[in-house]
């Protein structure tokens, strides 16, 4: 149902809708508020599919069969959408009709883990230099490094260890690295909402 009387004078009025395709649909499409919300939702879409284009192979070219139900699922659970964003997409895919396709090829998991590590390296402002992300579906893990010189960007590495680390107790786990060396394994921390 489209509601023409939704408060929409200032940006703050729209905050709850900025990550909700369902709420977006309640705003008249010919109004600025709708375009503002649509613009916000497109950023979530592009953040997922521009970085993990492989997912379009299983969703179809517009990605909406993943994007819309995932965003609704995330809203129900009030997921924070920090650098865990991609990991939660994988968690949703794992219990979705796409599960079989997802688990048939590890490229999806590698893409998701790499994207998440890169997002941590971009957004985190703590003192850690790097992050390792592991998954119960693979013995490989991914490391994201923050920028260590003005001449270089952030870096993401796939690690295929000769001696696997113990698997995370949940689907995903992570630990941070205080230096630019992978020289510790303090155990896996769980992904939080």
């Amino acid at each position, binding site marked *: 149902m489209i509601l023409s009387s939704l408060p929409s004078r200032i*940006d703050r009025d729209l905050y709850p809708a*900025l990550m909700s395709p369902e709420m977006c649909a309640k705003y008249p499409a010919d109004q600025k508020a709708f375009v503002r919300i649509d613009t916000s939702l497109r950023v979530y879409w592009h953040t997922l599919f521009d970085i993990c284009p492989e997912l379009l192979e299983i969703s179809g070219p517009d990605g909406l069969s993943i994007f819309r139900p995932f965003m609704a699922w995330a809203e129900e659970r009030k997921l924070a959408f920090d650098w865990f964003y991609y990991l939660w997409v994988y968690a949703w895919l794992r219990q979705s009709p796409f599960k079989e396709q997802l688990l048939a090829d590890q490229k999806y998991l590698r893409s998701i883990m790499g994207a998440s590590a890169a997002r941590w390296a971009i957004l985190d402002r703590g003192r850690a230099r790097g992050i390792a992300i592991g998954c119960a579906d693979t013995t490989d893990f991914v490391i994201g490094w923050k*920028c260590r010189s003005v001449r270089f960007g952030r870096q993401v590495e796939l690690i295929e260890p000769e001696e696997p680390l113990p698997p995370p107790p949940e689907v995903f786990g992570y630990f941070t690295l205080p230096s630019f060396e992978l020289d510790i394994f303090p155990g896996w921390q769980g992904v939080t909402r």
Partner: protein
Amino acid sequence: MRLGFNFTLGSTYDMVKRLIAEGHIDYCEYLVDNFFCVDPDELAKAFDCPIGLHVMYSRFLEADRPTLVDFAARLRDCIDATNAIYVSDHILRFTHEGRAFFHLGEVDYSGEYEFVRDKVLEWQEIVGHRIHFENYPSIMDGGLDAPAFFERLTKETGAGVLFDASNAVCANLNCGTPFEAWRNVIAAAHHFHVAGYRNSIVEPFIALDTHANSLSPETLAFLRDFRSVFDKPGATMTYERDQEIEFEDIVADLKLLRNLFGESQERRHDLVVSA
């Protein structure tokens, strides 16, 4: 008016060096918190020019004090090492009820004024430095309240405004905030940003601050009409480009700005001394 370029990514390092060497820019602005794991001395020596520091993710309206104290300690190291000509930050909402915006939110200038003012005072006290806060490229009609908000904020906190001219153009196109309403803010400001923007995908079109396009005719007209209000001793204008980074396009825009404001009368040495 001294011209600068925003340095956000290691991949543009050689290009920025060339912009400096060829005299297209007079200083460089670091998106400083992208480089918190880089030795501050390396930041100071990386470019042969004065340095401005622009903060993106302090999240000072939302972060707790211990987090801000830790952030500020690293920022302070960078300020001291680079002898920064200014420090700037954003008044933005990064989350709503703990959930992250990927397209950041504009504050409620009327309803949240006192909250923002107190946070600005606290953040400047923690950093131990005057901070210049950037205006938002308003979409919704709350943007009409922005000029009065920034005018009052600077009077009551001692903070400055990093006035983004193209953000003001976006606000003018999107919600009709008159350029004239910004006159006092521009007159009091010494540090400016300018960049390209583009229209939204769907109609009714809104102008989005993308840093991916050349300067618009509307932006250039605004700068021309208010040229004498912008230009003043010590003034800086950073040209921002984060996407579609083409050297020739950037130089073309920088030449337009040079022609508009004239050659900087202050040499790089003077800019450092004035800091």
